[in-house]
């Protein structure tokens, strides 16, 4: 059993905690969160030993691994402390906000031979894995364009008070939605060399972006487009899609299916004809031992556990690969520096009474 602790028990954290506690090879010995309210409930109703102080947890518990799901700005320091103590680390995405931190942590993890993984769960979705396999097989011919989109209904009115609405804490659609789309591009096609034409704007948010658009550029002339908007109520939940065009056809993949169009049959895809081939999630998904919200969330935790058991330090979603996504995000930020367009919707002026009694 891998003695594991968790820090950060918010929405994503609770989902991880549930999956971790259900894993047969993981002994989840303690959790840590600054909200005493939540940790009291977990202790009382689930028997989980909880801390409100991260350092004290590391001090007191004999651990092999740590799962980090705190707000993004806390990732770097917590991951560093854990690595220094020789712990294997799974960190939620985005990995770090400052790529200099990321470089140091990659070096540290690799030097110590520790398992290091970041929660880009789309790499564990069957349809996206299939897209990656097909693109890398060469079946599409020479790839010349990629489009990644992420839409969803998160910020739909001008307010919000969590860390996700705060610019300096890794909030905004850039760090929450866009980094997933960027990582998917890196996974399926490769990491772009530069970005331009960046648009970042609040639709309803005053301090952070709700929509991000930009062009991606590759050294060989391949181009890409990124379209992200988390203020789109027409989507029931986050929806991410990637399309790749090549000289022999195109592919579009989302969480449910993979649609492939081949101009001519290709040796790398013996089961696909000329024209359309559709692959569905039911065919592409590998079953997991425990299901909560999607196979990919369980699959990535299982991968982490198996990596620890087999000492696989450079597996899928390594710190190194997640840092590539952070670098693209940093390019997007630097390309949009200085330009702060007003949000689409201005906050309503408060009435006299509201201002007096504020």
């Amino acid at each position, binding site marked *: 059993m891998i003695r594991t602790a968790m820090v950060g028990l*918010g*929405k994503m954290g*609770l*989902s991880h*905690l*549930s*999956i*971790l*506690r*259900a894993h047969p090879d993981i002994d989840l010995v303690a959790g840590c969160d600054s*909200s005493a*309210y*939540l940790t*009291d*409930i*977990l202790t*009382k*109703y*689930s*028997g*989980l030993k909880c801390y409100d102080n991260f350092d004290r947890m590391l001090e007191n518990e004999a651990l092999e691994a740590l799962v980090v799901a705190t707000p993004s700005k806390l990732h770097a320091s917590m991951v560093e402390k854990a690595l220094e103590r020789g712990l294997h680390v799974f960190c939620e995405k985005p990995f770090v906000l400052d790529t200099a931190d990321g470089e140091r942590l990659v070096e540290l993890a690799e030097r110590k031979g520790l398992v290091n993984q970041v929660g880009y769960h789309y790499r564990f979705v069957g349809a996206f894995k299939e897209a990656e396999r097909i693109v890398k097989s060469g079946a599409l011919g020479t790839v010349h364009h990629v489009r990644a989109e992420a839409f969803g*209904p*998160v*910020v739909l009115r001008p*307010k*919000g*008070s*969590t860390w*996700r609405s705060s610019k300096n804490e890794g909030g905004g659609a850039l760090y929450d939605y866009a980094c997933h789309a960027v990582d998917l591009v890196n996974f399926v096609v490769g990491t772009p060399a530069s970005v331009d034409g960046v648009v970042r704007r609040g639709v309803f948010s005053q301090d952070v972006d709700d929509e991000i658009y930009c062009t991606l550029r590759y050294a060989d002339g391949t181009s890409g487009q990124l379209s992200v908007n988390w203020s789109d109520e027409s989507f*029931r*939940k986050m*929806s991410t*899609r990637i399309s790749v065009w090549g000289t022999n056809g195109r592919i579009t993949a*989302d*969480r*449910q*299916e993979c649609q492939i169009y081949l101009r001519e049959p290709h040796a790398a895809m013996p089961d696909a004809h000329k024209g359309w081939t559709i692959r*569905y*999630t*039911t*065919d592409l*998904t590998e*079953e*997991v*031992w*425990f*299901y*909560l*919200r999607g*196979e990919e969330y369980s699959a990535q935790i299982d991968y982490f556990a198996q990596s620890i058991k087999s000492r696989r330090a450079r597996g899928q979603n390594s710190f190194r690969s997640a840092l590539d996504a952070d670098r693209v995000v940093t390019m997007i930020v630097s390309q949009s520096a200085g330009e702060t367009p007003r949000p689409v919707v201005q906050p309503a002026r408060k009435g006299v009474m509201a201002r007096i009694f504020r």
Partner: protein
Amino acid sequence: MSSTDGTQQMTEHTLMDRVLFGDNQFFGVNHMSEDKARAQSMKFQDTQAIIDVLDAAYAEGIRTFMCTTHDRMSELCDHFRNNAARYPDYQFYPCMPYAHKYANAVTEHGMIEALRMFLPQDGAIGAMLKGGVALANKDVESIMQLLIDAEMKMFHGLKTPVVFMQNVITDLLLGLRMKETFRMFHDHVREKYNAEPGFITMNMPQLLDVLDELGIVNPIVCANINRIGFRMCGGVPLYEETIRSRRFRPVAMSVLASGAIAPREAVKYVCDQPKIESIVFGASSRGNIRQTKALIDELTARSPSA
């Protein structure tokens, strides 16, 4: 059988209908295709379009609607309340909660504030006090009761003989090992609504272990049951063995695995399993409803346990 107003609803020995009508198709849920899901949410954005399909199912003899407590359900409930004479035996199996409603609120407002938002704010002052006190005392049982009551409100005056906990919550609590919460749900549904509690899960064998441990006898458990093992954690052999040997009341969903299995083969597989009480399926056209209902009726009559 009677209504949420009181009197008797379902006892442990009352049979559920063989065929239950599901609601994924109405609310843009499709496990195979986002395009199909969008087309469906366009088709069903008018509540009358949903009512037309429910009427078609009713005409085929399907009188139980197993439905998520989506906001739009309240309009449907109004329809059935206002036209009670047209549907004398109609009943609902509410499945709660509609989790995206909570998840989006937590992202926007944080966990405690989101919880506060969903606790009842109208009605008796007592309920408000109870909500406030329960929150302050971290009294999960009272909070859960208030949340259940809030979800059940839209079904007032309608028959709800079985009330389900949605799989995302069941499985979250299962993994977290907050076992007592299943007992709390079970007791409140029985005591306040005189209904039979049910649990939807993707982890059927593991959930049964916990329900057994809690002494919840012969529970209604709704899970994916299909020939290809789609979202059946533990695998097909373990599911088959569990259905054969353990004491519970299985309801099969995702029988067609979102269309990955041909209908006859899919329904035959489920009908060949012993003691599956009900099969839930969703469809959008009268033709599909008739075909699937007829198939279930035919293969049920021929099944080994018939």
